[in-house]
């Protein structure tokens, strides 16, 4: 990062952007060569998405699937939000009969399950599905058909859960459904089975996306982007993907054990026959705590991207930031027992976990200090994405501190399973993940839709969300301390919790208004927002080098990168990669550490097989709830679908037609 970067006042960020036509087709950005127009038309044809009546089911392009993923995740978020509003109405005053006890138990379980399994993890992966190929300068996400498969598994899981909920079979044992309340004797019917199957759906979807992200980040970076030049967001997604790989199996085994206990009569959690309910808690929380970091670490990456662009300088301490992300990932696996401090485990074991739980505050602290240092040295531009990041810092630091409090055993004995923990988890999840997500969506909205979101509405929505959030969740700290337990459908007036709950309900109305403003702003501006060119914010990373919305093949020529902020360091002199076939969907595979070009790989054509495989797998999962024979019948069908998916269709043509060789694009600058 040599030389001083002069903040030119004329940068498009600080001025209102001049009106521009709808994305200029072949992209006259810094990485183009004269004569690219012919290539663009050819590539557009080769990489064109599926056509024909069944095209909706055949799409495998990471832009199409990424956008669908984000929209579906936000639909679940809206539904989860409505459920939260219902809960807040029920708790607004003592002895309220708005919701019955049974319905309230279903609603708070659905709220938790939707937010954790159907929104938080998938939406962070959805944004990565869309943005990672652009950020690493690749033409596509690895294993595109697997992307389609993971989207459909996620979609079918959500549909199953909400159909069950509307049929009064919504799970009602909490989002972590402790045994023996979730075991067959105390949870009759199919409610908890639906919960366990949903966990299977979403974890297969999450693992599939994690595999793609790891392979894309490690093997498809543009030449020159060695590991120490990867943008921080790409680092955060790599760490998250590895955490998913090692965390999800624990809940996979856990939900399998729960299903076996409930359907086949095994005794894994039955104390009388040698089982142990704490085995469930260990298995679940070994996954549970890394999962909240799987939700949080992508947000760290998003904050770094936003701060880099809106403070007009690279983030301070790149290596410290990367090491902090990796450290958070590792330590995240070592502190799951802090969810079980009140279960009477041996004291010495528990204090180890207190130390680990406090230690994880250090990497987060380092990141906060580095961001503040970046703001100190940079020149902040107060656009909504930066506002959301500042909201993030204000709220997450408070959430982190209440986390340190909850890490101490004596204090946790008082506040565990109370509204203090409800406040803490919302501060670190909404504050820590949703705020950066809203900022990042605002920041990448022009890249995804080609149009800018309205700034005024952005600021209004930020302040509504910020004030509404604090009004709702700050009183809950006090509620927890004055004795209000979690998951109570009502409470008596003599407990004195009425006023604070009413205040929280009012706050939740403001919060809901804020989210509504943000979503209306997004929906309206998607169609009628101001046109955004390739780089409306003068951003430094590669996604701003191509059109908005980017063509299906992302880059005609992959640039050779020489820094973490390629677009800020004379991009027009960067050497370009040529020679990738234009008639086959070819992607450049580069070496893992120094991103040297290694070989070319052709990606498959769009196909409906992933959809059918997902349908068959969903059929097996649903059938398994009713009879074990569903596996015996379902496995052959699913295998056939998978064979169809894997089977090569057209014979590979040797030697393509007009090779995009260097001579053809000999150009005089």
């Amino acid at each position, binding site marked *: 990062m040599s030389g001083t970067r002069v903040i030119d006042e004329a940068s498009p960020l600080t001025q209102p952007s001049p009106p521009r036509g709808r994305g200029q087709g072949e992209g006259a950005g810094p990485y183009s060569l004269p004569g690219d127009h012919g290539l663009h038309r050819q590539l557009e044809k080769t990489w064109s998405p599926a056509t024909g009546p069944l095209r909706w089911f055949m799409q495998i392009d990471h832009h199409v699937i990424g956008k669908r993923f984000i929209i579906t995740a936000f639909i679940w978020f809206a539904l989860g939000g409505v459920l939260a509003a219902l809960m807040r109405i029920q708790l607004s005053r003592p002895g309220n009969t708005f919701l019955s006890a*049974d319905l309230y138990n279903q609603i708070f379980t659905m709220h938790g399950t939707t937010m954790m399994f159907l929104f938080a993890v998938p939406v962070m992966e959805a944004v990565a599905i869309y943005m990672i190929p652009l950020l690493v300068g690749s033409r596509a996400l690895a294993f595109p058909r697997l992307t389609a498969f993971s989207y459909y598994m996620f979609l079918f899981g959500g549909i199953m859960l909400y159909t069950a909920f509307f*049929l*009064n*079979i919504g799970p009602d044992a909490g989002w972590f459904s402790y045994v*023996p309340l979730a*075991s*067959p*004797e*105390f949870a*009759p*019917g*199919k*409610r908890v089975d639906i919960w366990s199957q949903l966990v299977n759906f979403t974890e297969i979807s999450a693992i599939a996306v994690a595999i793609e992200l790891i392979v894309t980040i490690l093997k498809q970076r543009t030449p020159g982007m060695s590991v120490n030049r990867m943008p921080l967001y790409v680092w955060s997604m790599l760490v998250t993907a590895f955490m998913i790989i090692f965390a999800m199996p624990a809940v996979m085994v856990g939900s399998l054990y729960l299903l076996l*206990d*409930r*359907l086949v*009569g*095994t*005794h894994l959690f*039955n*104390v*009388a*026959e040698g089982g142990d309910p704490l085995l469930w808690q260990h298995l679940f929380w070994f996954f549970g705590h890394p999962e909240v970091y799987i939700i949080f670490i992508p947000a760290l990456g998003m904050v770094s991207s936003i701060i880099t662009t809106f403070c007009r300088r690279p983030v301070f301490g790149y290596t410290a930031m990367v090491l902090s992300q990796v450290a958070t990932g590792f330590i995240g696996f070592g502190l799951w027992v802090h969810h079980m401090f009140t279960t009477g485990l041996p004291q010495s074991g528990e204090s180890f976990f207190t130390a680990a739980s406090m230690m994880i505050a250090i990497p987060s602290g380092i990141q906060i200090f580095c961001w503040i240092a970046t703001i100190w040295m940079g020149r902040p531009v107060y656009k909504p994405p930066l506002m959301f990041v500042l909201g993030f810092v204000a709220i997450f630091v408070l959430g982190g501190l209440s986390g340190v409090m909850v890490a101490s055993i004596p204090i946790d004995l008082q506040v565990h399973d109370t509204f203090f923990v409800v406040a803490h988890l919302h501060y670190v999840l909404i504050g820590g993940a949703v705020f950066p997500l809203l900022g990042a969506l605002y920041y990448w909205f022009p890249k995804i839709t080609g149009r800018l979101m309205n700034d005024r509405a952005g600021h209004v929505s930020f302040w509504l969300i910020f004030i509404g959030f604090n009004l709702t969740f700050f009183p809950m700290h006090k509620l927890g301390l004055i004795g209000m337990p979690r998951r109570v459908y009502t409470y008596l007036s003599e407990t004195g919790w009425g006023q604070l709950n009413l205040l929280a309900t009012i706050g939740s109305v403001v919060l809901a208004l804020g989210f509504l403003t943000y979503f209306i702003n997004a929906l309206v501006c998607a169609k009628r927002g101001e046109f955004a060119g390739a780089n409306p914010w003068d951003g430094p990373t590669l996604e701003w080098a191509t059109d908005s919305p980017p063509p299906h093949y992302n880059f005609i020529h992959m640039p050779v990168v020489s820094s973490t902020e390629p677009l800020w360091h004379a991009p027009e002199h960067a050497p370009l990669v040529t020679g990738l076939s234009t008639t086959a969907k070819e992607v450049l595979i580069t070496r893992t550490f120094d991103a040297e070009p290694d070989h070319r790989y052709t990606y498959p054509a769009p196909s409906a097989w992933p959809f059918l495989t997902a349908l068959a797998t969903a059929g097996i999962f649903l059938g398994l*709830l*009713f*009879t074990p024979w569903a596996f015996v019948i379902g496995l052959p069908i699913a295998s056939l679908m998978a064979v169809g998916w894997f089977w090569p269709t057209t014979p590979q043509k040797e030697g393509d037609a007009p090779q995009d060789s260097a001579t053809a694009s000999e150009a005089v600058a």
Partner: protein
Amino acid sequence: MKRVLVVLAALTLISCEREERKFRQTPAEAALQKRERLVSLVAGPYTPDVKIDGPYAYNAHGISEGKRLFSWYNCVGCHANGGGGMGPPLMDERWIYGSDPEQIFATIVEGRPNGMPSFRGKIPDHQVWQLVAYVQSLSGNVPKDAAGGRQENMQVRKQEQSIPDLEPEKAPAEHP
């Protein structure tokens, strides 16, 4: 599209019924117990023998409550866990006093010779209907997805879900 809605409606009915949490005795149950009869002889013209399902026959919560009451009201004392002891086994296809829900109801409320006590006034009626549903599930006569799973104590027999549906034996000629 209409067909899908019809299927969905049917699905709603069955699953709603299974997952319903009926905490209170519904008026329907109160009316039921007035209708059980012991003999087929009837004064006056022929009155049809109305086939009724117990209110909890398809209800998972009702059956699991029946299972709890089966041990709380000490039915296990004589019937063990369905295998029989002092009292007759309840898991086979042989029904001495009839396998219809209202006949089981009458057995519990009226009592039977050779040791079955009468629980009239001792067990509230909706709980008797829950016991009826559970007794039916002991010989697999309730839908599999509503029947109970394993219990939280020693494994004494197969879980109700795995008990095959035993067709009740045709009752031998009417007792003289």
